[in-house]
């Protein structure tokens, strides 16, 4: 049975089973390869997407449970090529390294900033506790967020 999903404002149909992890549907079927399956165990955050504005790990979420919710991926942040303010400060602060964690990191931060527009340093750190980055050592990413 086909799954009806709303991805980045668009209605899409998936031929996958309801138990397929959402990250695989997004990547393999919809070619939205921003979300990265880095651990597939819910620990690294690289696959984070927003489900009705809440950050979720798409590697653990069966696609069937996303039916009826608004799914947003990193690809939605700069729809016409204009970077979102969050993406812009990341570029300006030259914080991107290998870049693999950023799609997840940006979605966690987008969800967080929507409800906490003026965060403290500690709050940003707490918001990132589910997103591992192996390259950057975090602090300069946090500086970038606080410059918003």
């Amino acid at each position, binding site marked *: 049975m086909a799954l009806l999903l709303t991805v980045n404002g668009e209605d899409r149909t998936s031929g996958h089973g309801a138990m397929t992890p959402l990250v695989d549907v997004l990547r393999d079927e919809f070619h939205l390869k921003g979300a990265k399956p880095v651990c597939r165990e819910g620990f690294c955050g690289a696959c984070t997407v927003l489900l009705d504005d809440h950050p979720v790990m798409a590697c653990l979420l069966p696609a069937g449970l996303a039916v009826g919710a608004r799914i947003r991926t990193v690809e939605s942040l700069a729809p016409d090529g204009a970077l979102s303010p969050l993406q812009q400060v990341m570029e300006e602060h*030259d914080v991107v390294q290998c870049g693999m964690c950023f799609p997840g990191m940006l979605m966690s931060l987008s969800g967080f900033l929507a409800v906490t527009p003026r965060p403290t340093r500690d709050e940003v750190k707490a918001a990132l506790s589910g997103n591992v980055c192996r390259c950057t050592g975090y602090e300069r990413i946090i500086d970038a967020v606080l410059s918003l």
Partner: protein
Amino acid sequence: MAEVTLNFPRRDARDKLRGRTRYTIDRDVSGVLHAALLRAPVPSARILRIDTAAARAMPGVRAVVTAEHAPGRHGIGIADHPLFAAGRVRYHGEPMAAVAADTLAQAQAAAAAIVVELEPLPAVITMAEALGPSASLVHPDWRDYEVLVEGGAHGGNVAWEATVLRGDPEAAFARADVTVVESLFRVGRQNHLSFEPRAAIAAFEDGRCHIETSTQAPWTVRNVTAHLLDVLPSAVRVTVPAVGGGFGLKFDCALEPYAALLARHAEAPVRLVNSRQEEMLTCLSRENAEIRIRSAVTKDGEIAGREAVVLMDCGAYGGEQIFLTTMTAHTLGGNYKLGSVRLASRAVYTNTAPNGAFRACNGTYNTFALERHTDEICEAIGMDPLEFRRRNVLGDGNLGATGQIFEGDVLGPMLDRMAGLRAARPSKQAQAGDRLYGRATTVGTWFVFVGPSAATVNLNADGSATLVTSGVEIGSGSMMQGLPQIVAHTLGLKPQDVVVRAADTDAGGYDVGVGGGRTTVSLGAASMAAASEVRRKLLDVASGMLQTPPEGLTLANGRVEIAGRPGTGASIAEVAVQAQKLVGPIAGSGSFTGPGVAAMPGCAAGHFIDALDIPVFAVHECEVAVDPDTGHVEVLSYAVVQDVGRALNPRAIYGQIQGGVTQGLGYALHEEISIGADGSIRQSGFETYRVPLAQDVVPVEISLFEGAPSIGPLGTKGAGEVPILNVAAAIACAVANATGRRVQELPLTPPRVLELLLGRGLPLDFPHIATAWDDNLLRPLAAASWQGRRMAGPDAPGP
């Protein structure tokens, strides 16, 4: 010449931030088959039978291959490593067969259906077992292996032994006026945990194999894959998309030959990607090591003699550890002036997963050992550790362990710079509250791994330039920032007008690989040479156009001008168009390799590098608070003074330092790999292998030390590798300072720190390291007059 554009923004950031970058794991290839490896479930066994008939008959299966399809061996120094376990399993997780099928599930099911009959053999899991009197041999046939580099001593389970002897340490230790201090250290492995796993896609096109892969060393992949497939190296083409982190893990050939072999047998493209579990269990980790170090020191703190034995676990195959035995001389034998020294560095085979290269490699733990040992010396002779370092650090004209003469006073002024930082900011001691407070300042010596690089620059008629190399962007930004800056600087262009071709062994010339801080230096020097040739040709043509000799012309802002008469010249695009008409398109090529700095003849035996072409120094300082109830260590502050030669992109270097220090904090405090009695690595993912999270980290205070001598282009040195070098040293010395205990092991997890505080740990004891230094050697030193001679092997060694 034109000014260098500093802090040039990296051009790959935008797509990475938009989720549009296609790493190897993201590539779609039509008709691609999916592959799985069958891995050994035991650490040591004889293979009695492998039957693939049932697997071949399963749905979707297109190819099944085993050792019989690729019988060759590769390696660094010694060709000891077969593609598949052949006759014998040497580590838990070793590939025994590979399957390609229409889907990954089918490939995995077929791999599981391969019938393997194994007869268990005794295994050596630890180095103590491997060097024990009745140890079973990991490679009983080692005498039959091809030796690729002469000079190392081999024997028993010792894959490679390198030694250094300078001066008369025997006499130094016998002096009446010295205090002898001895220290023992042990460290575990560290997993890179790069976000992108090792991954490769192979396909045959026009009779040649094309491999797209996540690697740092495309030419090593080309050469090793060709060797194992028994084809000419020129029959393999390697291209490299954006790489999702490497840190040294991808400095060696890995999955590529399996994918290529399967593609050849299936006659279809094949994709092979390690799962996170496979990455954990078979990671080419930073090796575990055991160290004994002794020094003879006068009451004034002069180090009259030093000796050490370093055991490095290479796992079941020699790999990088064979090369890295070299780096003991330059790290443990670095930092300080030594009256005399002898060092033995041994790579030891065990029945465990092979280890590899990881950012600053054995420099991290050798620096940990050296700096902790230094603090133990200070305690023994009653000297302030900072004072001891000020007196003893290497300066201009001093000798290194192998007798190389160091140029310039670098570490001394860097210590002064750190003292300035310390004076300028208040101590964080108050934040420790009731906890134990400690601080430490450590020094470190590392190097830029130079070696061969090639570059071509094409000047285009639109005034842009294309830079073609085999360099890979692994995240550090060197390919995206440093290289275009260097070419632009030489040609008077803007860096954004320099297009950098992604690595392709069909387009760029030979390169050792991206690692060891060599990108900006080696690839940079080759790129600068190529651009200089373009510059010459460009000025020649412009000279005719402007009726002015080339010496009277300047290049800047995309224009050629007559010196002193701005606005009278022509745009570089106009000159390029004119050149196409007159002499044909302008191109230049350049190459570079290490110039080779001299060591003292006869000092070093079995070394791949006798002396450092470009030494790099670092000074780190930190404050910690240790909770006496839980053993938890909190880092209160961290400061780095790093020798960068010249900083082209200070912001990017700050990013490398913050990131490198963070990886070092993980290594020092909580990244722990343990190996079970069955020889398997116990940590299988992010849950059990604890890397630093945002809340574990502090902002690193950074001061870039510029101006130290460097042969790098524009005076640069590699800046990405070194930041991790003395983190473990600084943390361990600070924890020792806080607790008053002898810190001898890493990582300093809360249970280990509690053990220290409660005095419950057993003292370290290494029965497999002989007390008399000479008794450790396979090859008595008198016979060790060895002339370093490197022969071309398929693998290029390096960090």
